[in-house]
């Protein structure tokens, strides 16, 4: 159609699109820019940028380091952009603003219903009905976006075309009406390129000349559509490439239609663009071009190997010359241009895609295959015994599939009888989203996988099981949707003109790229809705109930009386109730024979790829729920049943506040790993031998059962026996679950042998990063860590060799000496190292005595190989070497407070030897015990000489995170039990004794940290008591009066309005929301039991105690997470491989020196940025309008603590007098009465009309704070509750006396925030020279 000129043009454009990565400016603009500009001009734009050739652009640019650091420091010192959202409203209040940010569950449910009903045109009339309700009610206004409207347009058109051709005219008319609404913008929703694509499709199908003509007068023809879309500056190319078109033929037709219209409208540039699009589609892009770092996959040895060949994922063969128009080619081109990054080459991604998309098919195939093998072997064969599990699963699957088909049919039939106007929850649409065959397998696999979770031996909590199965169905449906459109996956690539993460330019660039990619992904995916917890539980319960009903196994036992062998068919899963701490809890348990099998048989089948490492670099994080696995939705943050967290993150992403967090996650996810084959072989040998060795639990539990006392009538002996027996049983059960978990690890490691793999990461709500695959990752135990190593090697070099030795000493447990001593330690034990490496199992097994035996063995082997290689310095080392913070929490506290003494204890200051807090505390405790020993104390005698560093370590470490006495006692008990040298029944008493000693020793050791902790705690306490100013009038309203027994009636609803959780922003811009609120669970009746679930969409008032006590540790965690992210980014910039386990940073041995420097630089940069000062400022800004009820300040010791922290409230003498009049003197100690600078009193009345006026007219003028003492100003608002003045219901029962005269008095939150504790003299710059800061 377009001859030569176009061909030429195409060449230019192609080269442009691939080689020239567009600059940010271009990304800000919409693609429509191209439409306005003449095409030729666009194509001929000279390339003014002195760009690096594409290959170079992928590499690191030579970066000047100091300028780098400077940029980072500048970045950290800038005013952190806040993400500020309104405080959620109490559940009995609504506002449009609130529902804009926080969707409630009923609305969310309606969306899900629409989604499910639209899917495959399941029940479009019902979807339409819900849609109209939502549009009319306005409650979902904020949620109804163009994509949903488009989905409906599409559904209407499809209904007319395929499902109900007899009502064609009606459906088409509906579509046109909806289009019209969009075009006119009546409902704030505007057409997008998809809208036009759908309407063009409609025209193509139903125009008067077509085979299925619809005669409507107002039908917009292509000309109208084209002119409309041009008005909206939408690119016709995008319209043509829209996912609505499923075949090249359709797209080709549309190009014709549009071209014709363009001719009519005399739009030559449109004509040209369309021609270009057509020729683009005829060109096959070469995905491997300029991909130097990627080697094509040569081996395909995943378990899915068998099916891989059969399913034949055909990669388009590259042909030269004439290619007919192909829609997918066009799309690829566009993706590359839009994404501004290379799209993941198809064949590289194909294995991962295959792994993710066909998981259930593969599992079915495997099970079918194995079942067949067993059948061939005949029943009763020995082989059969070996793999019961697979055979059972196949069996269950067969039965469950049939059962589900019938069940779902029944449900649908039953639901069809319900009158359409009734709002009964209908499950039919949801159960039809995924085929019964998959539903069945999802259920089986998820239930098998969950066994042992939640602390239930051989089982799981019912509520969790139902939720998980429901969520798995939801995920599978979304994954199917996701892959249906074959969306291009953006890959990691450094932008061409990378200027560093921390420069303004670099940052904006990151943002622009991410936003474009996220938009692209969203556009090319069909709209799907989030499910509510309730819906998940409902779907899950139907499936799990069917499974429990159908899955059986055969079990044999011997009758004790007759000695006959008896066979019984028993359910494989059964339901039971337990009492846990007085609470009735439903659990689903596995039949003992099944759970026994899980510890032995291959369990690989039960794992979904979203629990496995990835074969390609994870998809970069594009938004809070886009990233990581290619098809399977995973969230960037693990939300704790808290919609607020999700909303904050979503908005922070939209505002571009969290680019570096996403970038950091991408860095962590792109670290390549592989399985350490040598270690794997040893582990496998140990596993198969069934013996116990270094955390590989034995196949059969090997400890002797406690001896039964001879005289069971001796109650005391019996009770001692009971305690021991219980411990024994518990240990045996733990052994079983350990065995299961090691089984998983080995299976996964086996599957990935020889592959390079990647661990996608996400965050917990404090911003700490974790790998998503739960079973096998580098954060796991010693065994997992030992099995993993970097996939890329680096030559050791001299320093690397030294670090390798130090690493070995650290792993062995010799980490208290200075570096030279550690090196000497290794050299002294070189013989042992060699023996361990050469004969790991048959030698002296020196390595097994190490603190971390498997990592130690790996290091022994690496060191041995290096030393034996002839040239150790040139040896290519794969092993990650660690640098750990010494008591990292305290390090941050010391740096925050400038605490000289504390800094010395945790190695922030310069010393020759590492200082070790744990040993210090341990010896202090020993001294105390020594004293008790003289008194002849029983426990002192028992424990003397046994208090090692290890026993107290965890407790000391967690003190800074606010460990309680109970927690400490449990930690110590565990340690004492592990020592095995105390009688079981004494451990508890001994740990109680020891916990007291340890806590008292720690007491004033960390006084520096204490002041900051208190400050953080007080701030959190005040925030969680505060109420936004605009809620105050409402808070003073009396609650609706239906309190039982007429007692305890409160005069206001202040407590109900205390909805503010503590929110802060990390230096990287990540908003952290503490999720702690009163638990409010809803009872849901299911077929199995009634379960109680919480609704994350319905926030309750905050739990002030938890908010306050958890804030200091959470804040410190958010800081260490920031430090880690900064380090990760900086390591990437400088080209180091990097991995981390919170405060343990890993890289190649040869890069340790470099990384150490980075660690220190980032720490200094972080702590030079006045972290606490910025936090205080943020609180003042974020909670600027918040008021604290005076009554809330009087609880417990709060007032006294505030006084201690230096809080002063300035009041006028009037205010003070008013307080005294009411008989309240408790505030005297923190009140400064001053009429010179005091704020005036505002009256809040509850009658709505005058409340506003008085409030505004008498708005408290907060006096200008004097510099340096900004806390001295206060304003009190006194409200008079006219309507309730005569109410006299005194009740003193509550701790928070809401009925006192104080109840209507408030003080500004910012006025009572305590001043920051004084900073000490420690200078963080010192750390630069501290050797043992991280070591």
């Amino acid at each position, binding site marked *: 159609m377009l001859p030569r000129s176009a061909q030429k043009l195409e060449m230019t454009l192609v080269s442009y699109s691939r080689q020239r990565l567009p600059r940010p400016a271009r990304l800000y603009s919409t693609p429509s820019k191209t439409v306005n500009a003449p095409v030729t001009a666009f194509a001929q734009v000279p390339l003014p940028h002195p760009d690096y050739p594409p290959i170079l652009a992928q590499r690191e640019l030579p970066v000047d380091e100091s300028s780098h650091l400077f940029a980072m420091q500048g970045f950290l010192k800038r005013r952190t952009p806040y993400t500020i959202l309104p405080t959620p409203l109490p559940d009995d209040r609504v506002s449009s603003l609130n529902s804009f940010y926080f969707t409630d569950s009923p609305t969310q449910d309606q969306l899900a219903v629409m989604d499910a009903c639209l899917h495959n045109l399941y029940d479009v009339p019902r979807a339409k009905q819900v849609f109209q309700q939502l549009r009319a009610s306005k409650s979902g206004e904020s949620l109804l976006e163009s994509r949903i409207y488009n989905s409906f347009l599409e559904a209407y058109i499809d209904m007319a075309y395929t499902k109900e051709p007899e009502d064609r005219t009606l459906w088409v008319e509906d579509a046109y009406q909806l289009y019209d609404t969009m075009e006119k913008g009546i409902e704030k929703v505007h057409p997008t390129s998809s809208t036009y694509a759908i309407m063009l499709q409609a025209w193509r199908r139903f125009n008067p000349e077509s085979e299925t003509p619809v005669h409507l007068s107002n039908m917009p023809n292509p000309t109208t559509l084209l002119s409309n879309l041009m008005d909206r500056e939408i690119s016709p190319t995008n319209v043509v490439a829209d996912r609505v078109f499923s075949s090249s033929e359709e797209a080709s037709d549309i190009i014709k239609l549009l071209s014709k219209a363009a001719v009519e409208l005399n739009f030559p540039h449109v004509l040209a663009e369309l021609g270009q699009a057509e020729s683009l589609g005829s060109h096959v892009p070469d995905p491997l071009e300029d991909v130097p770092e990627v080697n094509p996959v040569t081996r395909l040895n995943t378990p899915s190997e068998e099916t891989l060949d059969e399913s034949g994922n055909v990669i388009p063969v590259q042909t030269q010359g004439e290619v007919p128009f192909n829609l997918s080619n066009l799309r690829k081109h566009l993706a590359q241009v839009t994404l501004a990054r290379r799209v993941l080459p198809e064949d590289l991604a194909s294995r991962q895609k295959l792994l993710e998309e066909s998981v259930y098919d593969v599992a079915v195939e495997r099970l079918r295959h194995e079942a067949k093998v067993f059948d061939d072997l005949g029943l009763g064969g020995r082989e059969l015994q070996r793999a019961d599990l697979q055979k059972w699963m196949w069996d269950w699957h067969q039965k469950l599939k049939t059962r589900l088909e019938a069940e779902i049919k029944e449900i649908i039939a039953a639901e069809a009888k319900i009158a359409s106007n009734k709002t009964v929850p209908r499950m039919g649409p949801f159960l039809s989203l995924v085929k019964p065959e998959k539903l069945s397998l999802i259920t089986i696999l998820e239930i098998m996988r969950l066994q042992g979770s939640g*602390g239930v031996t051989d089982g799981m909590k019912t509520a969790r099981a139902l939720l998980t199965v429901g969520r798995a169905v939801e995920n599978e449906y979304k994954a199917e949707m996701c892959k249906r459109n074959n969306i291009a996956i953006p890959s990691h690539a450094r932008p061409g003109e990378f200027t560093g993460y921390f420069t303004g330019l670099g940052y904006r660039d990151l943002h622009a790229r991410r936003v474009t990619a996220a938009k692209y992904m969203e556009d090319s995916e069909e709209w799907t809705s989030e499910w509510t917890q309730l819906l998940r539980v409902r779907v899950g319960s139907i499936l799990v109930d069917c499974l429990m009903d159908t899955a059986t196994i055969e079990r044999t036992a011997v009758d004790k009386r007759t000695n006959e062998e008896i066979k019984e068919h028993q359910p494989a899963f059964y339901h039971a109730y337990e009492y846990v701490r007085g609470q*009735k809890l439903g659990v689903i348990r596995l039949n003992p024979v099944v759970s026994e099998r899980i510890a032995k048989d291959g369990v690989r089948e039960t794992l979904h790829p979203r629990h496995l490492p990835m074969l390609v670099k994870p998809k970069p994080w594009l938004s809070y729920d886009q990233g990581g696995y290619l098809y399977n939705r995973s969230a960037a943050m693990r939300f704790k049943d808290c919609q607020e967290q999700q909303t904050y993150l979503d908005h922070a992403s939209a505002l571009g506040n969290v680019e570096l967090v996403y970038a950091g996650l991408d860095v962590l996810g792109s670290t390549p790993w592989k399985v350490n084959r040598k270690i794997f072989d040893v582990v496998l040998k140990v596993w198969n031998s069934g013996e116990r060795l270094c955390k590989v639990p034995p196949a059969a539990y090997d400890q002797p059962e406690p001896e039964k006392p001879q005289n069971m009538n001796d109650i005391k002996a019996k009770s001692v026996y009971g305690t021991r027996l219980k411990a024994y049983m518990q240990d045996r059960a733990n052994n079983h679950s350990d065995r299961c978990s090691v089984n998983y690890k080995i299976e996964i490691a086996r599957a990935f042998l020889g592959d390079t793999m990647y661990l996608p990461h996400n965050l917990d709500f404090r911003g700490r990063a974790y790998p998503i695959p739960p079973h096998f990752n580098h954060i796991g135990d010693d065994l997992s860590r030992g099995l993993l190593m970097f996939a890329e090697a680096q030559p050791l070099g001299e320093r690397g060799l030294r670090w390798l030795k130090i690493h070995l000493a650290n792993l062995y447990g010799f980490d208290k000496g200075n570096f030279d001593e550690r090196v000497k330690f290794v050299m002294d034990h070189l013989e042992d190292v060699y023996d361990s490496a050469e004969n790991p199992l048959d030698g002296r097994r020196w390595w097994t005595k190490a603190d971390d035996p498997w990592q130690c063995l790996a290091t022994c082997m690496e060191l041995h190989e290096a030393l034996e290689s002839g040239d150790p310095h040139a040896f290519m080392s794969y092993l990650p070497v660690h640098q750990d913070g010494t008591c990292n929490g305290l390090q941050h506290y010391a740096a925050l407070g400038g605490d000289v003494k504390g800094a010395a204890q945790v190695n922030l200051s310069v010393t020759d030897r590492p200082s070790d807090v744990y040993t210090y505390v341990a010896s202090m405790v020993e001294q105390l015990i020594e004293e008790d020993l003289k008194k002849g104390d029983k426990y002192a005698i028992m424990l003397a000489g046994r208090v090692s560093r290890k026993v107290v370590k965890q407790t000391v470490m967690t003190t800074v995170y606010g460990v309680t006495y109970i927690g400490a006692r449990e930690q110590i008990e565990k340690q004492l039990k592990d020592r095995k040298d105390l009688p079981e029944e004494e451990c508890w008493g001994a740990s109680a004794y020891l916990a007291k000693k340890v806590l008292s020793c720690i007491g004033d050791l960390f006084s520096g940290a204490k002041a900051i902790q208190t400050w953080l705690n007080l701030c959190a306490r005040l925030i969680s008591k505060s109420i936004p100013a605009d809620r105050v009038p409402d808070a003073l309203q009396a609650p609706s009066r239906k309190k039982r027994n007429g007692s305890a009636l409160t005069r206001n609803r202040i407590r109900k309005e205390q909805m503010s959780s503590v929110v802060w922003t990390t230096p990287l811009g990540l908003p952290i929301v503490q999720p702690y609120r009163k638990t409010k669970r809803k009872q849901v009746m299911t077929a199995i039991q009634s379960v109680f679930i919480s609704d994350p969409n319905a926030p309750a008032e905050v739990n002030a105690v938890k908010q306050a006590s958890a804030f200091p540790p959470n804040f410190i965690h958010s800081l260490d997470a920031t430090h880690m992210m900064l380090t990760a980014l900086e390591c990437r910039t400088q080209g180091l491989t990097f991995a981390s386990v919170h405060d343990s940073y890993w890289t190649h041995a040869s890069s340790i020196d470099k990384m150490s420097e980075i660690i220190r630089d980032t720490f200094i940069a972080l702590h030079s940025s006045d972290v606490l000062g910025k936090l205080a400022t943020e609180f003042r800004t974020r909670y600027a309008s918040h008021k604290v009820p005076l009554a809330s300040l009087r609880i417990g010791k709060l007032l006294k603590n505030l006084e201690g922290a230096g809080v002063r409230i300035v009041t006028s003498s009037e205010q003070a007098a008013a307080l005294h009049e009411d008989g309240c003197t408790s505030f005297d100690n923190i009140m400064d009465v001053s009429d010179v600078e005091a704020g005036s009193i505002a009256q809040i009345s509850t009658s709505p009309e005058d409340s506003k006026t008085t409030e505004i007219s008498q708005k408290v003028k907060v006096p200008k704070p004097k510099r340096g003492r900004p806390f001295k100003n206060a304003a009190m608002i006194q409200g008079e509750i006219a309507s309730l003045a005569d109410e006299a219901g005194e009740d003193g029962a509550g701790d928070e006396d809401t009925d006192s005269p104080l109840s209507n008095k408030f003080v500004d939150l910012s006025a009572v925030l305590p001043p920051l504790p004084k900073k000490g003299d420690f200078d963080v710059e010192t750390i630069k020279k501290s050797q043992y800061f991280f070591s």
Partner: protein
Amino acid sequence: MSSPFLLRRAFSTSIRCSYRTKKIPEDIITNTLATQERKRRLPKNIQDIEEIKPQAESQSALTPKVDRRRKRGEVSLPDNRLDLPPLSKWIDYFPTTGIALKGRISLANPETAALVADSFVPNGSRDKVIIEAYPGPGALTRALMQLPKERIRKIIVLEDTEHYLNFLNPLQEVDPRVQVLPMNGFLWDTYHQLEVQGFLDDVETTPWSQSNPYLHFISHLPMDVLGEQLIAQLLRCAPAQSWLFKYGRVPMSYLMHEWVWDRISASTEVLARCKLSVIAQAVSEFNLSIVPQLLLPYDDHFYPAGIKPTYSSKAENRRRGTPFVAGTLRPLEHQIIQSDMLDKWDYCLRKLFVLKSTPLKNAIGHLAPGADVLKSYLTSDDVPAEQRTDMMRIIRKLDVEDWAAVVHAFDRWPFAPEDLLVTDSFSRDERI
């Protein structure tokens, strides 16, 4: 070397309840006795008894800590502690807060105490050996001492709370029949020690076929959950004839909360029926020893005074001030629970009472995987028609015979779980 009574309780949950209990150093009793011997020879000056404490305390850092309180200016003890002070002063000497003291309720009215004592050890009793646990300040102990002497030969008082001991120790000085031991009635070890130290050497063992006329256990039941556990555990000793029951069918008398009594005596028709009811009814017969009205209103008879309810709510029945009753339980001669079957009884009761309003038919499957098959054990054709269990009956309404049938079927079933203890335990680590 002591373990709490919670034997079974501790098996079933991960809660550690022993925090209330105190450790008894092995030799404390010997020492106490030695001191007492010495004291006996000294002139009976009550103040001298003070000396016992410092010595006893030096033996154990864990004896109750009262010194601290006293330093804070607490009232010093009266010289005469043989008689209890007037009720109005009790608050000075007997604190009601603190984890060990919160649940303690004691008879306070001497007249009522006399009534109760007489009902526990009525006319006709001879040469009884009384073991009294949780005596509190000792109103009941004093009343027992004042009964005609021929009725009681010995009173062993088990109390380990310092505040109470102050007013108990003087008693043994004036009456050689009384022996006050600073031990906790909640610990198995206490009874072990009683035996080892020879306190029960002179107690006659009587055959199970007849009631033991001598030994008698008397206790105030602590108000908190431990009280109920105590009585439940002691009842469980009857089938195996352990604890004091090795001396024969020893009666137990308790002053207990009305709601505990309601649970013990709950018939199949009552909502309160629970595991405790089934066990109590399987192993013992019981009756109230005095008319409950005689102990009402609460405040006239007991210490500490009740808390005024601000509003009434059913869940608040454990509040101080709800009525107390006095009752006696006597082990049955014919024990329906065989001594080695107790664990299975416990298992079945625990598993099924979770579903107490569910018909047996539907509930029995929750016992263990495949337990639905037990239905046939209970109702199949080879079971005589009159012995078949009514599967439609709800769990709460099963009587002791029904339970015996269920447990028997469970015992015969080859697939019954072996680890009856660990099946419902949760691992300590409740994270994923």
